[in-house]
């Protein structure tokens, strides 16, 4: 269990969400295909992805990038509220072995904070981008001041 080192802080425009890096590999793609019961070849059959679909390699699932964004947002809101809505779209296809940064920045403060969110490629361009709206729970604090968890989720991604 991670420690919950809480520090009082306000959710201000320009604040960073608790970003993390991922480097998807074939094992993670397999597990994601399995749990979402997705038999689509382009995520595991490299000769098919190359020879039939014309990609350099198998593709990271677009929804997996959405899943990382939701992990980011849930970690961000956990100490003080909940996510109410999210919008995202994938701009570029991504191959396994690419280091991706899942992050975001607050664009609106107050009781219903908003943020821009992204999955960024090593050159800083976005593979997936979107936005999130959240709500500070009653009793969490007299907003906009609230508790922010400064632990970084590291998960199992550092292979």
């Amino acid at each position, binding site marked *: 269990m991670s420690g919950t080192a809480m520090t009082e802080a306000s959710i201000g425009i320009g604040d960073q969400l608790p970003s993390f890096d991922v480097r998807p590999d074939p094992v993670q793609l397999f597990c994601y295909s399995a749990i979402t019961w997705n038999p689509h070849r382009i995520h595991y059959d490299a000769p098919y992805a190359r020879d039939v679909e014309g990609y350099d390699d198998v593709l990271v699932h677009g929804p997996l990038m959405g899943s990382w964004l939701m992990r980011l947002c849930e970690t961000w809101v956990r100490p003080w509220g909940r996510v109410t809505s999210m919008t995202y779209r994938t701009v570029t296809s991504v191959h396994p072995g690419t280091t991706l940064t899942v992050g975001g920045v607050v664009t609106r403060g107050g009781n219903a904070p908003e943020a821009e969110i992204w999955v960024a490629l090593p050159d800083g361009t976005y593979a997936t981008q979107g936005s999130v709206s959240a709500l500070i729970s009653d009793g969490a604090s007299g907003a906009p001041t609230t508790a922010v968890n400064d632990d970084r989720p590291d998960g*199992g991604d550092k292979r």
Partner: protein
Amino acid sequence: MTSLLTDEARGWLGAEQTFEPWLVTRMQIAQYAYTLGITDRVHLDVEEARRAGHRDVVAPLGFHLVIRHAVPNLIPISELAEDGGSDDMTPPTTAQRRMAGETSTTFHEPIVAGDEIRLSKRIGSLEEKQGRSGPLVFVGYDLEYRREGSGELVIAERYVRILR
């Protein structure tokens, strides 16, 4: 200008499909959490989840994607296409490829182990645009995830599939 959309395909606007309820289990939630590198114990340990005020192990935000992607593929393997995919309410076109467009999700309630979630899907929009590389069809699906029994709306989602 060539068109991918036939009159038959246009007739798919408003088409609806409701799937059998999906029983959410602790094991699926753990598999999803581990796949995503999520380590918070409320997703993995029922006691921890109850201490946090949940009925049972709570699914991470995003778990509904398991339901969304799995249910259309719950068909005999012999009925899957050559690429391993399923039709999944895709209107018939001459398009060669399909890609994911924008997803917008509204979260009303957390999903908890033991929930039975019924997904329904409706084609709410269907339009063709001219892209740089030729015509593109945008199919907009309106999805509802409801808790069986109470009928509560847990998640509402709009998902766009691009055909080209």
